[in-house]
């Protein structure tokens, strides 16, 4: 009886502690999600404040809308190029810095600087740097005798320009996460491997990388989600152009919601994006879990 009372009081204390967070999450996350789902089932012009129920029409409209499909494809292209470059790049840098050569600390700080800079500022700087006529990068490349392009004004290169801007911004942040994962691996394992005659490369593939999988899982999932939600640098650098070549889903959702005021359709597209991210995250989590069980 006494134990039951104690458990109850512990549970109540726990509930009191999480209550503020739960209230905030309910008001600012759960309620808007439910409201957004309700909006997605209506034709809702937010400026005129007129709305009526249309069922799944907005969802059907999305899959017949060329611009939505193009934005979906661009989002997938962005994700498939951004995530591998970012994850492999930051992993490689983390491994190199983990060897602790002279000046490694300085490089760590230097690489982390973009992560504390606003994405809008980074995007403005890159927009100027990449300008084909007056951009510093183009001037340097021309001085070295290379043919240059208007990176952001060419539909063939604009996506790469925004991908690389995103990578530059986040590579230092991911590197720090990988470094903390590498530091958490016990030294005994490396010492034992060395006694067994394993070289640095063997140690990397047989100890570091397998034990880094939980960190890798976290990095992959967070970057995948953020890449599906990419907006800032697209908005500042290209506004989805040229010729819709960098228009991604979140930018198109923003356009329909806040420029056309068609909030019902924008909410429906946001829900489709939510489902896509959910499916990818579940698949990834399952993949890493089965990898861990093996």
């Amino acid at each position: 009886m006494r134990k039951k009372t104690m458990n109850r009081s512990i549970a109540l204390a726990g509930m009191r502690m999480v209550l503020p967070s739960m209230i905030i999450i309910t008001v600012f996350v759960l309620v808007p999600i439910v409201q957004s789902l309700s909006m997605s089932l209506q034709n809702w012009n937010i400026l005129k404040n007129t709305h009526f129920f249309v069922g799944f029409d907005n969802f059907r409209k999305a899959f017949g809308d060329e611009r939505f499909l193009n934005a979906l494809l661009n989002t997938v292209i962005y994700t498939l190029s951004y995530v591998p470059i970012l994850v492999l790049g930051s992993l490689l840098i983390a491994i190199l810095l983990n060897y602790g050569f002279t000046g490694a600390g300085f490089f760590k700080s230097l690489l982390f600087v973009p992560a504390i800079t606003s994405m809008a500022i980074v995007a403005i700087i890159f927009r100027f740097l990449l300008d084909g006529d007056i951009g510093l990068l183009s001037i340097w490349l021309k001085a070295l005798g290379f043919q240059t392009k208007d990176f952001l004004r060419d539909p063939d290169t604009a996506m790469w320009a925004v991908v690389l801007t995103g990578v530059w911004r986040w590579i230092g942040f991911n590197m720090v996460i990988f470094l903390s994962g590498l530091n958490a691996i016990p030294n005994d394992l490396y010492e034992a491997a060395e006694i067994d005659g394993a070289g640095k490369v063997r140690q990397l593939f047989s100890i570091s990388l397998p034990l880094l999988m939980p960190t890798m899982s976290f990095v992959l999932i967070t970057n995948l989600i953020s890449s599906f939600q990419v907006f800032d640098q697209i908005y500042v650098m290209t506004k989805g152009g040229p010729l819709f070549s960098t228009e991604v889903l979140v930018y198109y959702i923003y356009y329909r919601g806040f420029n056309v005021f068609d909030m019902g359709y924008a909410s429906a597209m946001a829900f489709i994006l939510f489902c896509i991210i959910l499916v990818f995250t579940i698949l990834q989590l399952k993949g890493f879990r089965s990898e861990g069980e093996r």
Partner: protein
Amino acid sequence: MKKIVVVLILIALVSAVYAGGSTEAKKLGKQTVVFWNGYTGPDRPVLEDLVAQYNAQSDDIEIKMEIMPWDTLFQKLMPAMIAGNAPDLIAMSVGRYAEYAEAGKLASLDGFIQNSKVLNVKDLVPGMIEAGNFQGSQYAMPMAFAAMVMYYNKAMFREAGLDPENPPATLAQLQDAWTKLIKKDSSGNVVQYAQAIAVKSTVPMVPVFMWMYGADYIAGGKSVINSAEAVQAMSMLGDAFQAGVSPVGLTGQEADNLFAAGKAAIEFNGPWAINGFRGAGIDLGIAEVPAGMAGRRTWGGDTILTITKDSKVKDAAWDFIEYWNSPATQRTWALNVGFPPTRTDMSGDVELTTGNPDIVYFLNSAPYSVLFMADEPKAGRIDEEVLVPLYESVTRKTLDAATALKQADAALSALLNE
């Protein structure tokens, strides 16, 4: 109990601090008019001075101005209107007000105009008044009028063997100048463009070329974009871009940067650009936009003032509109900012023309200036969804002019019928 008393005292103190600013005007017996605008540039101090003068001379009205970038203004405006916190008076681009008027968010100004003792709309730029009339009712009054003129780099003209004192006056002369002004390196890359022609996020530069050929976009609520004249105009532009007259895909800001950096010899733009170009050290020439085979037409427009429907101080907001469009205010504005006045009865104002010689070009351009899609509620969407893709595909030659215009016509008709 003690804690509750402390919390109540804190709430009272915070409320007093926040209430302090808004009650200041009330204490003085003044009505407060909240005025949102996006004059963040070099024109800001002039506007602030004019508003301060108004506040000083007015016994019962206080203009509380909130200046923010135009993008931010439009991002804040919709939620503010929905939440019932909209400002009383808003300055916005002439092309943007119609969607808010259509949504019933703006007040009709017909009654104020009829009863006004100091402001006669017949004294204001007719195009701006016409553009501010939505479905038979006046919703917008002029704040700033601008016409697009031709800026050119005199040093580049001299270097190309052109007479900087006789800039191109016709499209044929302009095309001739283009061929002389383009410079290429040994690999064939353009190192100096003849003209910076922006196709997106810009004041309408391409429409000026369309009007030169007699082409138009919308007439009687229907698309007229796919005409023989439009095919001619867009074909000419497509060829010009391919020849290196201008880089493709420029935004207005990029075109300005290119001209200010001395990488392009000509740019069509409004009066706000003068100080920036001179500040960048450009040997600046100004002329009217060249005439086409269909005559001389240029873009005109800029900013209007609107009063929100839910405003409780509409009379006070109107009083400021009257002050703003008075000859004295317009003279100060024109002399310090370079915009021509919103009044047509000031063209003979000696103080104005001698005080700012640049203004002559804008005054001369006013009679043939065209307000582009000003009363069209879908103007923003038409630009983003129809016109920018049209200009981009033609100037990049991903489509020929006839096909691109056919597609644009279908898209424009669908959008207008939506």
